[in-house]
């Protein structure tokens, strides 16, 4: 660490005003404050002096995502070996395959997103904002493994510019950037984001695995959305451990649970939102069990709804995004509850979308400010009433 600090101090003058590498000063600044907590604090006025700045918070979110990401890599390999090769490989073969399949996506997502952020920071003469640290790792985690890299790059660029930068950058965005990326891909290239042929990789990578043509594997939700009422996929332990086809890191309830615990212990995510998303989903699942249409989706038990697809992942990592969720304490319950309800409603009532979590969260992102407004207003009017009553 000491050597790194000395090295950074040595090259620092090049990046300051007048130095020959001044054009890259925002890049240098971004890396320096990422590695070391900046020693500059505000000196005037009332400020909270704390070393936990948003870069440190973002790092914790990334750490909490790592169990799901590692498991996702393993599952990519596992699904490939079981469906394309036909037999299980060793642990390292399967993990290595998944690692090689997922790594280019992470590189592309970070490369494009951070590239745009650096350019804009340089152009606006601002510091680099760190929001993309989390979005950049979320994006490759929520796409199917067969999504081509150029599509990922295009969608990431679109989302960073149109969902974030034009609203004013990190902390000002209305929509969750990673979900906008996914929504762009979902509507622009539906054949690469849904259906039966994208969830399991069918190519061999560096001699690992086996190339097969026309491999189709449906996700449990995909089966349920096309099946008749008695074809509800049976609930198995695989749905909890995550050994089912799906977007790269969304499948494992256990890995996501580890992430959720890290987020809750560090106090970054709100337990109110997480909890109420699950309550909303379970409530709507039970309602459809009782009164829903006669389809497999509606007959699916509520705990299976919660375990499948992106429900857990969305509830833990997407809905709790502090920027795009409701900020009032009561509002968080309403926000989360409605996400849970909407996700199941979309799944059950719209046969075109077997997964409703993405659209539910994006929809509630729009309503979050409205929820906050009414929570604040109702609080104000309640207090006014109380004041008038006590005066009389």
């Amino acid at each position, binding site marked *: 660490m000491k050597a790194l600090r000395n090295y950074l101090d040595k090259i620092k003058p090049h990046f300051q005003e007048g130095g020959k590498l001044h054009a890259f000063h925002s890049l240098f600044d971004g890396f320096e404050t990422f590695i070391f907590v900046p020693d500059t604090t505000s000196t005037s006025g009332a400020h909270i002096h704390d070393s936990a700045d948003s870069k440190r918070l973002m790092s914790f979110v990334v750490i909490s995502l790592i169990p799901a990401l590692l498991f996702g890599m393993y599952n990519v390999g596992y699904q490939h070996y079981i469906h394309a090769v036909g037999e299980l490989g060793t642990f390292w073969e399967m993990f290595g395959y998944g690692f090689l399949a997922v790594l280019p996506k992470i590189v592309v997502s970070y490369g494009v997103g951070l590239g745009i952020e650096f350019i804009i920071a340089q152009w606006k003469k601002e510091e680099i904002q760190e929001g993309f640290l989390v979005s950049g790792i979320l994006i490759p985690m929520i796409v199917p493994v067969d999504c*081509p890299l*150029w*599509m990922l790059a295009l969608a990431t660029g679109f989302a960073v510019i*149109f969902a974030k930068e*034009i609203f004013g950058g990190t902390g000002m965005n209305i929509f969750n950037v990673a979900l906008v990326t996914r929504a762009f891909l979902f*509507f*622009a*290239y539906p*054949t*690469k984001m849904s259906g039966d042929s994208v969830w399991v990789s069918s190519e061999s990578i560096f001699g690992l695995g086996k190339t097969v043509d026309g491999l189709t594997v449906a996700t449990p939700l995909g089966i349920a959305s096309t099946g008749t009422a008695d074809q509800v996929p049976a609930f198995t332990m695989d749905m909890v451990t995550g050994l089912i086809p799906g977007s790269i890191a969304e499948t494992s309830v256990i890995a996501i649970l580890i992430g959720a615990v890290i987020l809750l212990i560090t106090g970054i995510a709100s337990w109110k939102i997480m909890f109420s998303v699950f309550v909303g989903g379970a409530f709507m699942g039970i309602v459809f069990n009782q009164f829903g249409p006669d389809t497999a989706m509606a007959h699916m038990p509520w705990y299976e709804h919660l375990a499948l697809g992106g429900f857990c992942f969305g509830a833990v990592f997407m809905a709790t995004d502090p920027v795009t969720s409701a900020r009032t304490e009561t509002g968080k319950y309403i926000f989360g509850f409605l996400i849970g309800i909407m996700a199941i409603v979309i799944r059950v009532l719209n046969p075109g979308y077997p997964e409703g979590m993405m659209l539910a969260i994006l929809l509630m992102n729009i309503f979050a400010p409205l929820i906050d407004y009414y929570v604040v207003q109702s609080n104000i009017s309640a207090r006014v009433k109380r004041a008038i009553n006590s005066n009389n």
Partner: protein
Amino acid sequence: MSQLFSKKNREIFKAPLGIDNPVTVQVLGICSALAVTSKLEPAIVMGLSVTVIVAFANVIISLIRKTIPNRIRIIVQLVVVAALVTVVSEILKAYAFDVSKQLSVYIGLIITNCILMGRLEAFAMANGPWESFLDGVGNGLSYAKILVIVGFFRELFGAGELLGFKVIPESFYELGYMNNGLMVMPPMALILCACIIWYQRSKHKELQEN
């Protein structure tokens, strides 16, 4: 002749094409810009139809502007526009049936296009027929310009075609290129319009608000 194309008249014609564009600056006529621009051909036809209708409605209203009773002027304007829309619609049906099918109700809905009422109220009611004609052509063409730009990008990236001809070569598709399905949906027209506005505002300092 020199009076017909005096500096003032040229300005009347040029202003809407530049910094007073009815779509990107006044944000009028957005609805039809979203609806008809998924392909280039209907966008061009729509743009030309609106140009013709605005120009002649402007001339007619300008000619009779002194005899129109002020209290019923909107009704008179609507009658004139409706008559012209009907003529254009019939001509399209007779000579360009396919396009008229694609445009469907949107030709009829030109009558509600905000640009028309805006120009009639703001310009033709107060100016002579020749100036009104220039103003109508200028505004119509600037509307057509935006439609054509949006239609160009939407057809190129949404279908890989321009005016129905394949533009993106087959070899691209073999390499894994795919048409962007979002481009043919209306939201993308809005985003493209926004990009044009963004470009225009960054070029013209006087359009930027604080």
